[in-house]
């Protein structure tokens, strides 16, 4: 068996065991809650009675997965070179409020308007991530701490902006505050036609967010950058062995800055699916916490785009069951427990399986060289 395949299989086996264990642990919790685990797991797979409901549920799940996926990508860029960007949370919120506001100030054809908004969001996220990067490079400030502080600052700043300079009009009697509504040219077309192609009814709500396409392209693009380009190689080298990277001409300062800014720029996009796809403005109900969830998603996906996609779908799958679980009278907090336990176990099993893979690789190498045969010498 080729070494790569063996490693992949082992990883997969680890993930499966971890998930099975996580299910076992959450079953105990569900039992303790006086509910029936069977009902609970049925609820996870209960996508609704009618086709319409099923389509809705699938859309809900995919729509949830999109921002999680982007958040995971953002986090992963840094994590791959041991740069812990905990600040994705702040970066995406600030980027979202600014992008939503800028997008509402002008009207242009959709193919101009939407890219401009995306670029603004990426720029704001990237610039905000530049702060901890510069602090690290210039003054050696640990990025974990600085990004945590900057998260608080960004959250407050976003609140200030949406209430103050960026506030938009709103109908009487509505209490949520938001930026001005985006013109229709900024609404990202949805992907409902996919369902219609299969003769299914279109989902409700904002429909299947068209930003999904952007996310997929982003994932592929990032994969190419990380796996195939010089920049990606430099990131990998810095992550695996910083001093070797330094000695081989990788400029660590440049890497910290570019990886952080790239991470922040991707983070800037996290809020856009929601804003361009359904709310068409940044408001005080804007979904928080995606940056933190992104960390978990990235870890679960082992910092690789394909893995992150799977992890985002898994998280979205679990999150979607919020309603069905309550219909089945199971406490919905089981979801969070499952997510946490899965992350913890997957991470542990990753460790075990990768160690097993290394061992076997060493053995294989040694076998090929025949060094495991000691020389027989008379003492």
């Amino acid at each position, binding site marked *: 068996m080729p070494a790569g395949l063996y490693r992949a299989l082992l990883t997969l086996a680890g993930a499966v065991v971890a998930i099975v264990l996580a299910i076992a642990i959450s079953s105990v919790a569900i039992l303790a809650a006086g509910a029936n685990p069977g009902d609970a797991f049925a609820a996870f797979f209960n996508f609704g009675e009618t086709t319409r409901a099923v389509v809705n549920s699938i859309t809900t799940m995919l729509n949830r997965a999109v921002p999680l996926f982007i958040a995971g990508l953002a986090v992963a860029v840094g994590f791959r070179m041991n740069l812990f960007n905990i600040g994705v949370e702040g970066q995406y919120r600030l980027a979202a409020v600014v992008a939503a506001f800028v997008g509402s100030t002008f009207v242009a054809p959709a193919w101009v308007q939407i890219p401009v908004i995306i670029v603004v969001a990426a720029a704001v996220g990237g610039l905000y991530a530049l702060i901890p990067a510069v602090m690290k490079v210039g003054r050696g400030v640990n990025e974990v701490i600085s990004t945590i502080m900057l998260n608080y600052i960004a959250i407050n700043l976003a609140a200030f902006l949406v209430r103050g300079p960026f506030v938009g009009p709103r109908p009487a009697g509505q209490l949520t505050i938001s930026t001005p509504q985006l013109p229709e040219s900024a609404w990202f077309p949805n992907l409902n036609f996919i369902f219609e192609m299969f003769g299914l009814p279109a989902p409700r709500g904002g429909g299947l967010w068209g930003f999904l396409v952007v996310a997929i392209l982003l994932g592929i693009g990032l994969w190419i950058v990380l796996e195939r380009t010089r920049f990606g190689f430099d990131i*990998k080298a810095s992550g695996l062995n910083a001093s070797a990277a330094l000695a*081989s*001409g990788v400029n660590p300062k440049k890497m910290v800055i570019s990886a952080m800014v790239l991470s922040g720029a991707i983070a800037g996009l996290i809020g856009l699916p929601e804003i361009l796809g359904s709310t068409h403005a940044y408001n005080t109900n804007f979904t928080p916490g995606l940056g933190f969830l992104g960390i978990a998603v990235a870890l679960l996906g082992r910092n690789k785009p394909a893995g992150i996609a799977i992890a985002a779908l898994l998280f979205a799958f679990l999150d979607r069951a919020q309603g069905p679980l309550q219909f089945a009278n199971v406490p919905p907090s089981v979801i969070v427990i499952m997510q946490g336990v899965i992350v913890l176990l997957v991470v542990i099993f990753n460790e075990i399986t990768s160690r097993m893979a290394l*061992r076997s690789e060493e053995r294989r*190498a040694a076998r090929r060289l025949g060094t495991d045969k000691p020389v027989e010498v008379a*003492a």
Partner: protein
Amino acid sequence: MSSDTLAPARPAVELEGITKRFPGVVANHDIRLAIQPGTVHAICGENGAGKSTLMKILYGMQKPDEGQIRVNGTDVTFRSPSDAINVGIGMVHQHFMLADNLTVLENIVLGAEPKRAGRLDVARARKRIKELAEAHGLRVDPDRLVEDLGVGDRQRVEILKVLYRGARILILDEPTAVLVPQEVEELFDNLRELKAEGLTVIFISHKLDEVLGIADAITVIRRGTTVASLPRSEISSARQLAELMVGSELPTPETRESTVTETVALKVDGLSMESDGFRPVPKGTSIRLYADKLKAEGKRLLLDDVSFEIHKGEILGIAGVEGNGQSELIEAIMGIRQAHGGISLAGQDISAWSTLKRRESGIGYIPEDRHRQGLLLEASLWENRVLGHQTQKPARSGIWINRRAARADTQRIIREYDVRTPGADTLALALSGGNQQKLIVGREMSGEPAFLIAAHPTRGVDVGAQAAIWDHLRDARAAGLAVLLISADLDELIGLSDTLHVIYRGRLVARLDPSDVTPERLGGYMTGAITATEEM
């Protein structure tokens, strides 16, 4: 523990049938060994023969898969080093085992702390350390941070650590590797003293004359098995011992005819480096003046006005005790650390260039620590081939990494340098040290560099690989490569170099002709014992 009795009947240490397997490697295979109390017992063997593993087993750090250990006649099984410490065994490791941020005292007492009313009794510890230090001539200041110590001091701390625990059996794994001959002599005096007090010393070294100088008995290990165990008197020469070790003739690094040309490949001019971080020289001041001012203020210079030229086809060796500025010199030339002064490559000033640009313009670099600076252990061999050559053919095409070409070129290195590996996709950590080193040498030689820094190119590499690496260096030199060679192996230095400089406290203190210098005299310069620069 009655090792002080006259009865020679009971060996201090007896090992019987020790076997230890690592994944893919049998490090020790049915080792048998008896060590008499009150003697210095040397253990010799090639790199990777299994010496350190055996000692770690004896010290409780590794568990043997099979076999029996007897200490002073009683059977023992060790679960951890503390079990070994309890029966009076102490070990000085091949690599320093010190916590840099702790003081000398803390490092010494760790694990055997004197206590009073729950407190660490610092006063008693200090007194005890002072006593021990005086008794054995191992001077150190117990309150200094280990971080600030030089290698010699660190070695002394390591030995004090062992003595402090009242060890009666001392294991010294290559204690002399980082010492100069004078320091070695000092250490040997200490060892003889300890022996006289009835202690047993197990001593590992690759330097056979040292072994012959100190040992009462010698055991030779080859490929994990004891091949001979003899009293000193039965060995007549280092050559005989060496042949026992490798089972064949020894290769020697000998340079044939000189290939030195007139063209200067690399010129270093007045290179200086502060110890506390780079600061730009004030305008209008010369580097020399600036450096003098720094020294007048009592600041130390890591590099002090280092100047030399290397011609095409020349190997310039730098000898020196570790920590005298070699690493800094290399890092300054590579652009990893900022320094004052000029560096020019083929007449072009490169002192403001980035590391990357320097590499691109033809500098190759075999780093001193291959695991730290030379390899991505968890990446494949072809990716390691790309490392340092990301911007050069064949690894790169535009912004992309050319994977196919990189793989193909890795295959070439594997062939030409005889890297023993299943393939180019194997992870680097699966290779043995020697093979890793060959890969690095192959990588750094590719792309026809104009100038190569070779830092300890054969450290920890076994005899066969060593000879191969020397050959490659010589061939490249003949083809016009300029080499800066830094090595702790004086024979290698003397044998390969066309010119030899000695670095001491950041200064080049002597320029010697390798054809008529002995390791002893070299050692004299390296320790500052000889200061005359008559040969400069």
